[in-house]
């Protein structure tokens, strides 16, 4: 954008949002050049920070008239480069729209602004003994609007589902500035399920400004137990056995030996460093049910040669069991200069197989791969450890990452379970979908975003013929953990 035009646009935007709502200086714009996946960077030309839906509407209308690309952004905790201004233009930060508009406990609903931080809602309604179920690991920072865009998951999705299962209504500013509402407090609105279609559209359909959410009464009881296993096969078989027994825990989380070692070198969560795997199981619900299910789960663990079972007696012990799991990703910095995180899904039964294959590939490529994952829903987060200073190693890491993703798809899986496609995985889309499948998706985008001005460059492959497996250059992998993550107080997934 030429300077004069940019100045004119900035002035017009200031007239909408006020003096302090527009950022034009490069050093301040740098804050918005990437999301949680720090290696993709793109500097927006302007950042606008509206406080009301009307301001969003006016800003979007202006940009539409000026044919300027618009990128919505929440807290920037995304892990797929989804909130990047790849084609420049105006980035609209929703952080100032952080109010809880209405809590309607008797109707089990809350209406919040898009920039509200996920955990604030649960904090607000805790006194009523209610909570908001989707709990992405970044819930202390991420916003509901971002959760809606990415259809965020969390550790309790096995039982409670993901964001889309809890969003009942949306207020949207379409790319041309028109405001529309989908759904609301009442279920099953007539017509196509536009709420369902919008959730997970990664900011390419418009900007959501307000969200109607389902809130739930807190479970009467929560019990967390950890099984320590000699091998990851034993832990995987336990997961299968629990599911086969007809038990659906609130979560089933697993860590392999390399992850355990990294954690213990870092924060020392009290995990046995010689273990092959640990499996974390959390049950919640009516007290009688939770108490009744504990013995069978322990029994299934023993049948699968568990070495030790730890059961949290109180909330403090429960948090201790979780601490290692939460710190796992950041702990990789203890054992490796660099780490390439992936987010793939396989059918749960393929868990032992894919872990074996990852181990074989790891040896073949001479690179260590640590595994931490949501075992209950088959959502893997392999972490490829490498030294980015070594060019050859970097390339091997990329190739290995592509191989793992390809194998997950061959086993009937998916290339992303909760992080989204964004910028990062757009060129991997053809691995999973045919051109016709993608064309059907483009038709939907065409309806919402016919000019392609809203969050351009995301989701769809840049070139129809080009499937880059493990390509993308140096900038695709690096990651630097936040201090809170290193301490096991926050996590990314």
């Amino acid at each position, binding site marked *: 954008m030429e300077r004069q035009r940019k100045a004119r646009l900035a002035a017009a935007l200031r007239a909408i949002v006020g003096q302090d709502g527009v950022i034009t200086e490069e050093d301040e714009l740098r804050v918005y050049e990437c999301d949680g996946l720090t290696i993709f960077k793109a500097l927006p030309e302007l950042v606008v920070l509206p406080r009301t839906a009307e301001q969003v509407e006016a800003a979007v209308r202006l940009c539409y008239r000026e044919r300027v690309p618009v990128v919505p952004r929440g807290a920037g905790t995304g892990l797929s480069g989804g909130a990047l201004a790849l084609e420049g233009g105006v980035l609209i930060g929703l952080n100032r729209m952080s109010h809880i508009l209405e809590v309607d*406990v*008797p109707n*089990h609903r809350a209406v919040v602004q898009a920039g509200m931080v996920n955990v604030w809602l649960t904090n607000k309604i805790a006194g009523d003994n209610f909570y908001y179920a989707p709990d992405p690991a970044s819930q202390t920072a991420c916003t509901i609007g971002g959760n809606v865009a*990415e*259809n965020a998951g969390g550790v309790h999705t096995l039982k409670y589902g993901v964001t*889309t299962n809890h969003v009942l209504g949306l207020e949207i500013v379409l790319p041309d500035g028109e405001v*529309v*509402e*989908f759904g609301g*407090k*009442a*279920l*099953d*609105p*007539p*017509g*196509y*399920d*536009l709420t*369902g*279609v919008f959730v*997970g*559209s990664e900011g390419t359909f418009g900007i959501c400004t307000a969200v109607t959410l389902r809130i739930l*009464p*807190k*479970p009467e009881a929560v019990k967390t137990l950890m099984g320590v296993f000699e091998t990851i096969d034993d832990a995987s078989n336990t997961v*299968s056995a629990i599911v*086969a027994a007809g*038990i*659906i825990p609130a979560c089933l989380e697993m860590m392999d030996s390399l992850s355990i070692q990294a954690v213990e070198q870092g924060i020392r969560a009290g995990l046995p460093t010689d273990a092959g795997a640990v499996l974390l199981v959390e049950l919640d*619900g*009516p*007290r*009688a*049910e939770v108490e*009744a299910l504990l013995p069978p789960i322990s029994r299934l663990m023993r049948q699968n040669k568990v070495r030790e079972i730890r059961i949290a007696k109180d909330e403090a012990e429960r948090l201790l069991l979780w601490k290692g799991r939460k710190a796992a990703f950041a702990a990789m910095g203890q054992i490796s200069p660099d780490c390439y995180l992936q987010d793939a*899904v396989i059918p*749960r*039964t393929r868990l032992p197989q894919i872990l074996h294959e990852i181990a074989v590939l790891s040896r073949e490529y001479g690179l260590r791969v640590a595994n931490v994952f*949501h075992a209950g*829903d*088959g959502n893997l987060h392999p972490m490829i450890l490498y030294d980015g200073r070594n060019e050859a190693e970097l390339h091997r890491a990329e190739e290995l990452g592509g191989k793992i993703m390809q194998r997950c798809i061959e086993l009937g*899986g*998916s*290339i*992303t*379970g*909760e992080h989204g496609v964004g910028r990062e*995985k757009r060129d991997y*889309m053809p691995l*999973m*979908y045919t051109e*016709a*499948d993608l*064309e*059907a*998706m483009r*038709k*939907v*985008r065409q309806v919402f975003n016919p000019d392609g001005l809203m969050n351009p460059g995301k989701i769809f492959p840049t070139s129809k013929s080009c499937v880059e497996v493990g390509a993308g250059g140096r900038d695709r992998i690096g990651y630097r953990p936040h201090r809170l993550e290193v301490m096991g107080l926050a996590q990314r997934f």
Partner: protein
Amino acid sequence: MVDPAVLAKRARDIVGSDHIQTGAAAAAFAVDGIAPGVLASPGSEEDVSRLLAAAEELEAAVAPWGGGTKMGLGAPPRRLDLVLSLARLNRVVDHEPADLTATFQAGMPLAAVQAHLKPKAQFLALDPPFGARATIGGILAANASGPSRLGYGTARDLVIAVRVVHADGTVTKGGAKVVKNVTGYDMNKLYIGSLGTLGILTEATFRLYPLPVAEETSLCAFPTLEAAGTAVAEILGSSLVPRAVELLSAGAAEMVAAPAGLPWAGGQVGLAVMIVSVPEAVRAQLNDVAKFCRGAGSTADHVMTGAAHTACWEAIREFPGPSAPRSLVLKGSVPLTRVPELMSRGVGLAGQRHLPCQAVAEAGSGIVRLYADALPAPPERTADYVETVRGVAAELGGHLVVLEAPLAVKRRVDVWGPVGKALRLMQGLKTQFDPKGILNPGRFVGGI
């Protein structure tokens, strides 16, 4: 209208003469009195694809047909040339018990699906009406659900992948056969509830649930809907985890109690609460339910297990049953706390118009179904009733859809009701996916 002879020849070339009906045999598949010239029963997804491609070329209007249980849903079609029966697409595509996922062809009846899953102690957590005949494709197209949606959600929560044949014959998939997936847009949501106006579903993959170890039901009697509503609010606001919570108007409660073998005092409304868990937790929760009900003024409390429990829920799900008249069925949806009011006003307004009416509500989901016998009444009066109750639902913060009505009534009301400014987007989707408007033209919202 397309020449039936031309259409029949094209269809015969694709599916063979054994799977084509014309004339009176095809006319039996009329939709709202409009008879198709041809009925075709494809035997494969490829047949569906070729049939649709041919239909689009001829600009023949197509209505997909599953079990035929929801053909009353929607506005009368603008035109109809070809009914495409999915009856032969009735196979289990795959079932991975350990993954708790399974894929079924669209024409498979729900009852057959459940029969297939039962030996593995699993089930598909959908319990819409007409469970014996309703098919997977029809249930998804109508986004039909039943009482247990409180515990498990609806098709939009349970479907993880679909295969769809588009108007031009193109076949695509949406989603993946894994329980967690955010790769690309959530296309499953687009097709569920679209009444076959965007494409024809050929198969769907679901996440399954284990069959419960124990399930029991409490059926409580209350003097008024308001009192029962108080109990509902207490139960829903507590940490109890009911699988279904149904409120029954007085007449409905009697009709549900009878097959369950329970005595029922006239004039008492009913509250049925189903608890599903391990046996010890079922008992503990039912005790709490009874406590809440007594506190709200219940006059009787029946706990049902086994056959009585099953009969009670069958009666609720299939209300008002095969022998009772059900010429008008309305589905209102309101915020949870407004359910008793919509029920009593819905029944009251019908009474004022001499329409016998009962109400059955999924009180934990805010869904109120009103069942009226409208055949004896002049259609103007019934149409006036529909519009008036719709006004009440809107006033209470919700909306109302006509699920079934005599044709003369459907011609006088908008069966779907208004969808607001979102209609422009919905019309846009229709144009993108079915530019020639051959799929169920006229039956969906806003004339789509």
